[in-house]
């Protein structure tokens, strides 16, 4: 029975995409068996283009022949389809807060990473402002979801391995134990969680990829 169920769920992804990782983590927490298809983003498969004609991007989840795109939308779909091991808060207000931070938490981080000088300073100020507020969401909790990993942890989870790489490449530490003790602890707890630790892309390979992307963007500007 479980074998058959596994065939019904397919995830189209790419090894370095933080959006794909969100879906992987949710599928792991929900203990859903699925088939994974690694896409070559320079040569996208016909199936991917058929399943996501609007954006032509990963991740795409296909369940019983129906395709769902956009990672946060996939997370809500997974929550609503597989009822056990819930990842969404039950309370409507907490849901609203989680949905808000799912998109707001990362604001400015990419800008910080790919810019220099005054632009970078402005992006950094915005990131710090966000993190100061985000830190408060962790007061009295191990995870944003409380005792267990939830929707918001999954949505911002990429921060736990992405920010250290950004910090290394830009030679600037944003999330220090001193300034953001709760976020700092959360990063460690999240990335070492049983649902996450074996899914993280090889650090060197990911770091190299981000380094190259950043160089290309900065060069193009100058």
């Amino acid at each position: 029975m479980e074998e058959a169920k596994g065939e019904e769920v397919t995830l189209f992804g790419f090894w370095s995409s933080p959006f794909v990782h969100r879906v992987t983590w949710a599928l792991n927490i929900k203990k859903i068996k699925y088939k994974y298809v690694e896409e070559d983003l320079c040569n996208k498969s016909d199936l991917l283009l058929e399943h996501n004609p609007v954006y032509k991007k990963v991740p795409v989840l296909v369940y019983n022949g129906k395709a769902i795109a956009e990672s946060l939308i996939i997370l809500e779909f997974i929550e609503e389809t597989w009822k056990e091991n819930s990842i969404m808060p039950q309370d409507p207000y907490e849901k609203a807060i989680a949905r808000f931070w799912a998109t707001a938490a990362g604001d400015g981080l990419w800008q910080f990473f790919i810019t220099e000088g005054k632009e970078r300073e402005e992006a950094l100020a915005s990131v710090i402002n966000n993190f100061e507020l985000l830190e408060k969401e962790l007061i009295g909790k191990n995870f944003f979801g409380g005792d267990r990993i939830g929707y918001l942890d999954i949505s911002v989870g990429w921060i736990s391995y992405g920010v250290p790489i950004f910090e290394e490449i830009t030679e600037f530490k944003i999330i220090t134990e001193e300034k953001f003790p709760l976020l700092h602890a959360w990063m460690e707890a999240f990335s070492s969680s049983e649902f996450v630790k074996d899914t993280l892309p090889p650090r060197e390979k990911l770091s190299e990829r981000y380094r190259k992307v950043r160089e290309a963007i900065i060069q193009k500007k100058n």
Partner: protein
Amino acid sequence: MAGSGTSDVKLLGAWASPYVVRARIALNLKEVQYEFLEEQFGTKSELLLKSNPIYKKIPVLIHDEKPVCESMIIVQYIDDVWINSGPALMPADAYDRALQRFWTVYVDDKFVPSLFGIMRSPTEEAKAEAKEQALASLQLLEEAFGKISKGKPFFGGDTIGYLDIALGSFLGWMKAFEEMNGFKLLDDTKTPLLCAWADNFCNNEVVGAVIPETAKLVELAKVMQARYKSAPPAN
């Protein structure tokens, strides 16, 4: 007694903002009594800055002193809280819900920027390009309507739902731009389903009460355009 008095629910907003219209339609459909606190154009109140420190934008719903930000998050919240009042704004089926959310994200990411690009574009060329993109988006939304509505008047079926609210709240501005520029965005030949949908949406009593008048939006647009023209070019 739950819901007694209007001070339980406040909405920070402005009459012309389509994002605020989204929240108001949802509140009205759910028959929620609320206090509308109008922000003055060009300024931000202390309450707004305190309630939405990240984006400092309207709408903000304040329910029992707790702020909820981002228009479609507010709509979803209203649907979750006032679950026993008025129609369900989201369908029951998980895949149908995903479709409503997907096309709502599309409206916000692709359609709205091109729509307002028509007003903000500094050159005729840029304006034409924005218009083409807006039309292309509407074509996709027309196809989506065909699949999602299943022959019913709204994206939500028999009643106005999440995606209807997301897109429909922009109809006031769409009509304003059509009038100002002398072209059609919704067209009987290219987007017949959306034309019928737009009529049904705007004729709804609850909607009619909060969609801003086209003439007033045209007036406001002219003021805003003058500001864009006189502002130094963005680097």
